[in-house]
């Protein structure tokens, strides 16, 4: 099929404005993710593709299929298509520097040797962030052997989680990883790089939607959360809800790291800003 023929075929599934609005409301209710007008083309295109893939008679037919899909498989397919997963190793690593230089030492202070320190990467996408955190801790935190460090990675997208668990990456993902670290933590796998088993087997990956209260209840006593470039996809109400649930999941005194363009103070006053060097993070207060 030529590109033009394909486009014409997909046009059969073009939702009307009303259908599109109803889809956006449905998707928001299920995931907390809202789409602005700029995303309209991208979202409609993905909807057309899924309508065609499911051999629906029309978009209305597909939407009906989606709403009454009791096991949620089709919704998950859409979530996987509509979320952005671009990342790489050591992205915004100034926050990892703050983690090992200031945040972890502060958490460790007064905590018994051997006790658990829990770090959560949410969303973890294809795993680069939680693996980067692990590498940074092993390389740069002298006390890393004194504590049981649990690193968890969660995402709403089941496909990226499978890739994270597999731990196989293209050269592009490793562009910021120096050769000595590549040799130490990766082995070559054809043209790709495979994360070493020690790291792969030590990180727990799980599928969680940050605005799903029941799923979020599985995470408790988290000391540090990396929640970067996720809240930007939510509207004010969902953002507030997500921050509430994060707060609930965290230990008193725990820290949240957001993306460089995000600010907690615009969302909630629950957390206190803390500055470590040039890095701004947010701390859940200890109760008096």
């Amino acid at each position, binding site marked *: 099929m030529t590109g033009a023929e394909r486009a014409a075929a997909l046009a059969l599934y073009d939702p009307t404005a009303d259908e599109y609005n109803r889809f956006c409301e449905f998707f928001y209710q299920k995931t907390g993710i809202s789409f602005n007008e700029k995303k309209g083309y991208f979202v409609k295109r993905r909807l057309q593709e899924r309508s065609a893939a499911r051999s629906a008679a029309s978009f209305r037919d597909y939407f009906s299929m989606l709403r009454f899909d009791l096991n949620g498989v089709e919704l998950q397919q859409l979530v996987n298509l509509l979320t952005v997963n671009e990342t790489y190793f050591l992205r915004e690593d100034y926050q990892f520097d703050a983690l090992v230089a200031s945040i972890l030492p502060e958490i460790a202070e007064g905590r018994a040797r051997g006790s658990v320190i829990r770090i959560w990467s949410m969303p973890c996408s294809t795993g680069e962030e939680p693996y980067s955190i*692990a590498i940074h801790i092993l390389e740069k935190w002298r006390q890393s052997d004194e504590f049981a460090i649990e690193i968890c990675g969660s995402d709403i997208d089941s496909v990226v989680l499978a890739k994270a668990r597999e731990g196989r990456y293209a050269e592009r993902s490793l562009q910021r990883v120096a050769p000595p670290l590549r040799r130490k933590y990766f082995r070559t796998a054809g043209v790709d790089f495979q994360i070493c088993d*020690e790291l792969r087997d030590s*990180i*727990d990956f799980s599928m969680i939607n940050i605005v799903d209260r029941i799923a979020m*209840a*599985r995470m408790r006593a988290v000391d540090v959360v990396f929640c970067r470039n996720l809240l930007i996809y939510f509207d*004010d109400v969902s953002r*507030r809800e997500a921050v509430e649930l994060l707060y609930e999941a965290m230990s008193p005194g725990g820290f949240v790291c957001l993306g460089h363009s995000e600010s907690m103070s615009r969302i909630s006053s629950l957390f206190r800003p803390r500055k470590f060097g040039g890095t701004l993070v947010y701390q859940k207060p200890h*109760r008096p």
Partner: protein
Amino acid sequence: MLVKRSASAEPAAAFDPKAGLRDLDAPDPALRRHAAQALRQCPDALDELCRRLAVEPEGDVRAALLSNLIGQKSPGVADRLASLFDKGDAALRNEVMEALWAMPEQSIGTMQAMVASPDGRQRLLAVNVLSEIPDPRAVELLEQVLVREDDVNICLAAVDGLAHGGDFRSAGRLAAFAARFPDVDQAQFVVQSLLRSFGATR
């Protein structure tokens, strides 16, 4: 030492709404907060959530209660929230106001009733809420304040809200407000300044 978390598959504890309602008054603020979180999607709990909100001393518990209420937004929730304006301190008033801003569609009816209240404090609060609602109905209510309200301070709050949003639809109503208070210098000054700026930009 890195260790793999083994408990991620542990299921969330089953939630008992009755226990949740009881925990809203627990001595431990963490339990109260958890109850406020867990009682989401429980429309039967709205009155209890608002009752607790009026007396809750901990900011993070209040935040959870308010998030729950915002999540269940409706005209009824807006009514209940507005009724708390009389019950708490300035912090609670501000938090309630922010919650009403987070549900603008649902708040307008409540604010329409409040601007007609015989209580000037209620009318002032309503004007403050309406000032941050980006909706033509809110603009209309604020402009009605300019021509009907007897308290010049409330009128000035409405002018402030309208100017803040750049939402004046009628310079005539602004002039009518100034004409109703010819002896109030501040009203004359504000209106003249705004009318001049309209002349400059329109």
